[in-house]
Each structure stands twice: as C-alpha cells, then as structure tokens.
C-alpha cells in the first residue's frame, strides 16, 4: 500500500492513427509539481507494427547483472520462439540514476506438456510471473503485442529523453509522473504497470489494500511489487480479461453506487447493483484514486466513488484526452471541442472502431 500522489495522462486517437510521443511529454511537463523525480513512465500502443503478431517482452536487468540476462535468454529460448531481440536503445547523455539494462525480445509461445492446454495469453502471464519471481534481478516490465512500456527513476522528460520516446509512434499513449511517499523510487516500481497488453497508471493510495490483496490471492495473484497499483492491475486483469466484464460493469465493482442510491433504483437495477456489490464487495477499491487503464482498442479513466483524486477528460476530433489536470490537456490541445470532469465512479471510455482495431492487432 505504497501511497503516491501523482500526475497521470492518457491520449488516444480513436481512428487508430499513430502519432509521436512528443505531445505526451509536453503534457507531462505541464504537471511538474505532481511528481518528484522518483519515477515516470510511458506506455505506447501500436508501436511495433512490423512484429505485431509477436509478444514483445521488455526485460529490465537490475544492476546490469549479466548472469540474470543469460538466465532470461535461456528461459525464453526454452519456453518461446524468439524471433528477434535487441538492447532497447537509450540516450546515454541523459543523466539518470543507476539505469538498469533494458532488453526487448519478440517471441511466440512454445508450449509443451500440460501448458498446451493454456491459451497463449494465460501461458504468457504464467511465464512472466515465473521470470519475475524466480530470476533474481530480472523483471518483465512489458509483455503485450504491438505495444511497449518505458519507465524508470526520474522525471517524465528525463525518462522520455533517455528512452528517446519522442520519436516513437503509437495511436494511444498513457504516462505517469510519480511522487512516492513511502518507498524509495526504483526503476521497477515506476508506472505504467503492464501484463500482456494491459497497462495501468494510477494516482492514489488504496485504503482497502489488505482486503483487495487477500481476495486476489484466492485467484492466484500474489502482490510482490511493493505498490498498490499492482492490486489495481490484477483487479482489471481478473474482472476484464478473465471474467470478461466490460468496463461499464467493472467500474461499478471498483466504485459502486452508495446503498442510498441503490435503494432508490427501479427493481431491476436495484437487484443488479445489490448482487454485484454483495458478491464483489472485496473488490471495492476504497480510498483516493484515479486510474487510466489501456489495452489494445480501449482506454478508460476512472476515479474512486467519492472522487478524492482528480480526473479531467477532453476531446478534439478523434483525440480523447484523460489527465490529472485540465492544464495538461490545454497545453497540448489549446482548443478542445469539449472538456469535462467526470463524476466519481463514472468511467470515461475511448474505443477504436472495429476496423481500426483490426488494423492494430491483426
């Protein structure tokens, strides 16, 4: 339950058109005081279009431990077909503290034995968890197709420059600037958090952490990354990927209406929300939080039900913006068609149309 007060930002072109990361970095610069240089990161979707049928693993090698790197190479060769791999290019001129080694691998699953029953996604999740828990000093920080996460210790513009992301192109971006209050910033603790193509950037401190964590443990998730954002990521994974609920329902589990409101609904809705809350009460996420979640084709922002952390949304043509502050939106889009403040617990959702989605993932 590591508290952070942070700046978060997301932007998506709903037609699927790709654009450079410069805009995102500019927006983050406008929220300078929301971070303290102890963590920042970016997720970009539509990044690896030449390899879009392969999972891309970004592996962080702590302390540049080449033994760990060799272990990862062996593990990946045993469990995956590795079609390409390279060190993630960085700009060594940029001053960052103790940068680990980052390596990316484009892979497809090589399932054997009992694992053959698993779907590709479940297989990848399992193998990522294995690397993260079993290989010391190695962490898979990004594991989706045609997308990637870049993050580390520093201000957003430092991290952006270090990874040279201003020149990367994607149709959807999320970004995070961190103000950790309880933990030393470490490269792996920065946001976004990622599993498969799901990413989460989060601003908040979850007061229901113990309840959420212990409920998730019943479904095989173990929270190891020392941050409550991880809990958030696993909840979305459970409810959206594994249970298949749409965000409209998931929002009402994480941030349910008050009983006073439920009691005054029509019978049908009353029954629906009562059972939903009764069943998934342990996944109510309490305390102050705003989250931006993305996966291919969809991005949404959501706050806690009494809206203790900020979220502003904006639109300009096909562009949808989500931001901690309106100023960050206006800094990169001076004349938006519309800017609004969503109610607590009401998701703001951006989706690609089906044609555009096909272009991105197939």
């Amino acid at each position, binding site marked *: 339950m590591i508290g952070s007060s942070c700046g978060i930002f997301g932007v998506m072109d709903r037609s699927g058109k790709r654009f450079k990361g410069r805009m995102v970095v500019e927006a983050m610069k406008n929220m300078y005081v929301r971070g303290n240089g102890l963590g920042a990161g970016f997720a970009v979707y539509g990044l690896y279009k030449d390899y879009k049928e392969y999972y891309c693993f970004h592996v962080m090698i702590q302390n540049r431990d080449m033994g760990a790197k060799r272990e990862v190479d062996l593990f990946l060769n045993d469990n995956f077909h590795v079609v390409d791999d390279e060190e993630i290019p960085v700009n060594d001129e940029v001053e960052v503290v103790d940068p680990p080694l980052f390596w990316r691998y484009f892979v497809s699953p090589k399932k054997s034995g009992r694992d053959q029953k698993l779907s590709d996604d479940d297989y990848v999740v399992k193998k990522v968890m294995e690397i993260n828990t079993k290989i010391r000093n190695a962490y898979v920080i990004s594991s989706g197709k045609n997308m990637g996460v870049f993050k580390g210790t520093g201000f957003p513009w430092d991290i952006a420059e270090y990874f040279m992301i201003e020149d990367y192109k994607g149709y959807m971006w999320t970004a995070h600037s961190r103000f950790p209050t309880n933990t030393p910033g470490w490269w792996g603790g920065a946001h976004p958090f990622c599993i498969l193509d799901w990413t989460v950037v989060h601003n908040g401190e979850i007061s229901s952490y113990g309840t959420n*964590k*212990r409920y998730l443990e019943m479904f095989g998730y173990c929270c190891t990354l020392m941050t409550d954002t991880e809990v958030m990521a696993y909840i979305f994974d459970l409810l959206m990927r594994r249970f298949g*609920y*749409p965000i409209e329902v998931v929002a009402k589990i994480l941030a349910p209406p*008050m009983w006073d409101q439920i009691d005054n609904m029509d019978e049908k809705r009353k029954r*629906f929300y009562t*059972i939903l*809350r009764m*069943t998934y009460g342990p996944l109510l996420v309490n305390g102050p939080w705003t989250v931006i979640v993305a996966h291919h084709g969809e991005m949404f922002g959501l706050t806690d039900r009494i809206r203790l952390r900020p979220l502003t949304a904006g639109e300009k043509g096909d562009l949808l913006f989500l931001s901690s502050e309106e100023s960050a939106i206006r800094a990169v889009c001076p004349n938006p068609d519309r800017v609004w403040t969503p109610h607590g617990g009401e998701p703001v959702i951006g989706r690609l149309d089906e044609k555009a989605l096909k272009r991105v993932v197939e």
Partner: protein
Amino acid sequence: MKSHLLPDFYVERIESRCNKCGVCVKQCPWGVYSWDEEGKEILIDYTKCVGCQRCVIYCPNKALIVKPYEGSYRPNAYWTREVISDIKKQAEQGGVILIGTGSDKPYKVYFDHILLNASQVTNPSIDPLREPMELRTFIGRKPDKLEIDPDDFEIKTEITPNLVIETPIMFAGMSYGAISYNAFLSLAMASKEFGTKFCTGEGGLPKDMREEYGEVAIVQCASGRFGVDPEYLNCACAIEIKIGQGAKPGIGGHLPGEKVSKKISETRMIPEGTDALSPAPHHDIYSIEDLAMLIYALKEATDYEKPVFVKIAAVHNVAAIASGIVRAGADAIVIDGFRGGTGATPKVMRDHVGIPIEMAIAVVDQRLREEGIRHKCSIIASGGIRCSADVVKAIALGADAVYIGTAALIAMGCTMCQKCYTGKCSWGICTQDENLAKRLNPKVASKRLVNLLRAWSLEIKEMMGAMGINAIESLRGNREHLRGIGLEEWELRILGIKGAGEGYEI
C-alpha cells in the same frame, strides 16, 4: 456442615441517609435484607450478597454501598483466595462448581494488543458526519462468479439467500428459558427497530412472537432440538445449528425443571416442570458428513430459502473444522471464543477450554482463503466483544459480523454478578420468576439495546472514516490496518498482522 467460605461482598449502609423505606428488602432476591420482628429495623446479612448492585441503584436515598469483602486469607499469588474458596466449596458440596457469564480470568486479551490505523496526508480521512459511511452487511454464501448480461442489467447466476443487516452486529443466541420472556422480547424488538437480527438460542421461539419477529430471528437447532418444528424453521430469517459454545465447549446444557414454566414448556415442546437436557453432541452428528446431512435436511425443510449457520466453539483445530463446515454446506459459521458467555457452565470448562476469538477469526479466515472458499461462507465472531473497537478489530481480522451477548445483557441491566444459573436475577433478565421478570420493561430495555447499537455503529463509522474507508466491506479482512503491540512473533504470525512501527508492505 458449617461453611468455611468467606463472604464475597460487604454491604455498608450510611445510617444518616437511610429512612427505612424498605426498597432494598423488596429489590433484593438474595435475602440480604429483612425486617426485624417488630418491622422497625432493616437487618443486613451481607454473606448472601452477590454484588448485583440492584439495591444500590434503587435505594431512593443513596444510602447503600456494596463492595468486595475486604477481609481475606494471607496473600498468596499461587493459592489465591479464589482457589482456596473453590476447594472449600467442593469439600463442602462434592460437586461441579457452576457459574454464569464468560470467563473472568486474566488471560491475555488480544484485542487490547492490537492498534488501528488512521489516514494522514497521503490519504484523506473521511468525515462520517459529512460523507456517506456504509455498514450494510450481507451474511451468507456468495457466488464464485456472476454471469452478467450488462446491457440488460441482468444477473443470470442463481443467488443463495443472504441476510441483510444494517450494522455488522447481531445478538447472540440466548434462549427463552435461560433469559426471561421480557429480555428475549427486548432483543427481538431492538433487532427489528435497528435492522439487525437476533438468535433465539436453543429454547425455541414463542408462537406469539413468530409473526412479528420471525423475520429478525435466527432460530437455533441445537442438540436437544427444543422447539424445532417446520413452522419454527420457516418463520425465521435463518437457521443456526449449534454445535458448541465458547463458555462450555464440548458439553451440553441443562435447564432445570423449576424453570420450565407453562409458556416455556409450550415453546420448547416438553412437559411442564421437566428438565430440559441438551446432550453434549448432537446424537445424529458424529462426523462432518452427518453435519452436512442436517444442513441439507434443514435447507430442504425450508425450501432453500434460508441461510444455515453452524456455530462452534473456538477450539485448537478450529481452522480445519471450519473448512469442513463450509464444505458441508453452511452459509455462515459462528465462532464462539473462550470468553463467550453463558447462563450456566461448569467453572472449570469456562475457564480452561478453548482459544481466544481473535486468533480463531484470524486462522479461520486465512484457512478459508488458502482453500479459495472464503466467499462461500460468512464468519460471525462471537464471545467477548466488549466495544465498537473490538468489532472493528474482529472485522479487520476477517469476520463478516459479530454477535454480542454479554454486552447486550449489560445494556439491559446485567452487572456481571455471574449468578445467572441461580435463576434469581435481580434485574429480571436471567430468571423465570414472574415478579423478577416483570422488572424488565421491554420498551425500555429495547431502547437501551437500540441506543447501544446506534452508539457502536457511530463509533465504527468514526474509526472507518479515520482509516479512509467508507464501506465496511473494505475493512473486512483488511489486516493492513492493524498493528500488534506487546505481542511476540508467533502471536503476530497467527493473527497475520505486523508489529507497531512497521510500515506498509515490507
């Protein structure tokens, strides 16, 4: 045989205040006060005093002080006065020492070694006077996963019945027979008014209460099967199979024939004036599979419309037993800690058998989670819940709700004199003597109970708000908000909490 026992209490009368009105003579059922032959002086035999304080409260002139008898044996930390007295008692009577209420022994109180968290800066605390703060609780089995049609607000999964309570506090099983009709009725009235439930204990539910209070009654099915018939089961909101009780794990119960009045005989369905004996085990439950059969027999009898609870005493292997009970089909498990109260128990059982409720909640909750079945069953913690902070700690350790028994009796007037088994309760609670029972006015007593529920609920909201939590479900099992103080490593491990001064994750 001459009794060698020292008196327990001493009664001091402030002569200048006493105007010999005689209220004390009328109020005391123990025979401490009596008029002399001429009817002029009030005599005091303090050796009969049990310290119930009835006379003190009702003396219109505030002329009485009742205090522990000061004279004692040579001080001895090992052969204490209580030890000596018990030996003398048994040497004189040759029997089991009976006693009422939960254990009063100075075992470590784990609740008092646990501190709560509050928000500062990084997480805003929530003011319950300005913001919604929700205590609504559901007791019963929850589905593994919901099948949802989101476009039509439709849930296709079949839902098992749950009790809905507006505060996570219910009244524990106290039977009509053990307590008076008025006390029993007061619990029912308060439950209905506040939106919670009460448990009937094993003495049945009087027919005249079924229509009005059935919906708030959790009816017990205990080893004596007193008062159990289809109407009894079907008028209730839930059914509780009582296997054991914290004050006397592993033994049965005994309501002496003198207490079995006409109305009690009708309610329990036994002849008037006969002893009501509850066997130690249910003689149709010698194993977990037998329990499963009774659970399903009761569900069949009530058309699967009521949650079925199973109540056990917290004993050494409680986690494994609880797991078996969940797998046997129970919708809620009631765990009664070794501090749990009673109307009558052998003192040796009360004071030496069982484990603390705090540890029992912690290990049961953890075990059910490890087995992935925590959602299949609610946990109701019972036995020695004294205040709202105990409730909050019990829930954060993993309970869904608590039962209160002793605290409810104290709210109605009980002063913990521990003489419940005598049937002479001067406060009209634990008695079938009509003259004593009518001292308890159900309107007033239920008001006191409602006030207590209200006060505790307000305090729970304050504590939750301070933690930055606005719904009770976010407190449940949330051990991150608990820290141990003055506990050893093994105790922290069992409770699943960190020590004071330790921050969040690692």
